[in-house]
């Protein structure tokens, strides 16, 4: 299906005029969205929310003088989910904590992203066969970037933020993915 200036494929698919209007509005807003995405990518405010060990590396050490997340403008840790853009799931999610993780994610305003940091947040890590651990943050909320390690180094977290920035700004992140 090719898109021309006059006709959009949606007009072939449906006759619902309100739907066509909505799709066209989104298309008209696309250039603006691009500018916004540029801004969003440069201003990812993380939610100040640490679960376990990874919080020390991902939130504390990354913000600290050595690694200095503030160079990229991401140092604004907001403790209120209403003001945050990125949720850094740093640590093991237990069954008791899971509802709160979901709730915090839902309280964040759109657009929002999630970084799953450490093997616990990816798959449950060393605690995967425990009776009380959720095996991975992606069982609960959609995850954008995974950072492997137990616990990942702060450099890895910086790289995760860079990847998320590229993803937000619409660049191809995984060129060699097969």
């Amino acid at each position, binding site marked *: 299906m090719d898109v021309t200036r006059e006709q959009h494929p949606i007009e072939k698919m449906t006759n619902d005029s309100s739907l066509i209007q909505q799709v066209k509005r989104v298309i008209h807003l696309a250039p603006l969205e691009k500018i916004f995405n540029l801004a969003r990518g440069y201003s990812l405010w993380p939610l100040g929310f640490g679960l376990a060990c990874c919080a020390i590396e991902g939130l504390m050490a990354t913000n600290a003088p050595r690694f200095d997340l503030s160079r990229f403008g991401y140092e604004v840790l907001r403790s209120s989910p209403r003001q945050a853009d990125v949720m850094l799931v740093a640590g093991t999610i237990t*069954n*008791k904590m899971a509802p709160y993780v979901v709730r915090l994610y839902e309280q964040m305003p759109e657009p929002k992203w999630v970084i799953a940091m450490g093997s616990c947040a990816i798959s*449950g890590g060393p605690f*995967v*066969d*425990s009776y009380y*651990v*959720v*095996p*991975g943050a992606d069982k609960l909320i959609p995850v954008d970037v995974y950072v492997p390690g137990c616990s990942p180094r702060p450099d890895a977290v910086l790289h995760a933020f860079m990847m998320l920035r590229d993803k937000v700004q619409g660049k191809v992140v995984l060129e060699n993915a097969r």
Partner: protein
Amino acid sequence: MPGSSIPSTVIDGLKDKFPAIEVSENLTITVPEAELLSFMRELRDNPDYDFNFLTNLTAVDYPDNFTVIYNLVSFKYGYTLMAKVNLGKDEPAVSSLTSLWGSADWQEREVYDLFGIIFTGRHNLTRILLEDGFAGYPLRKDFQWVGGRE
């Protein structure tokens, strides 16, 4: 190690007062459940031992009984003491030590939470780590669960 374990003379004195206790070779004392509270009170209040610090309280699920373990320390003399209480497999219950040591409070709740051992004579015996509706007691050997490994 200096000042670590309790001298055998003190143990002998305890044996006279509580004939029902058993002392193993590494000076671990096994106390019958009925005498636990009075035994512990003696340990805490007698100035000869002065066990003022309940450092550890936990339990083990052995094949034929539950054992509750108490580790006591006397700051005055530097003695340490391990006391054990054996409980039956069905509805294990033991008297609570919260009236003697405040540190027993949370540790008893933890043991109740993970083993289902009832501590009598105390209030607020609720789950502390797991949520209230959790089914079963995970540290029992017969606890069945589904892990997340794929």
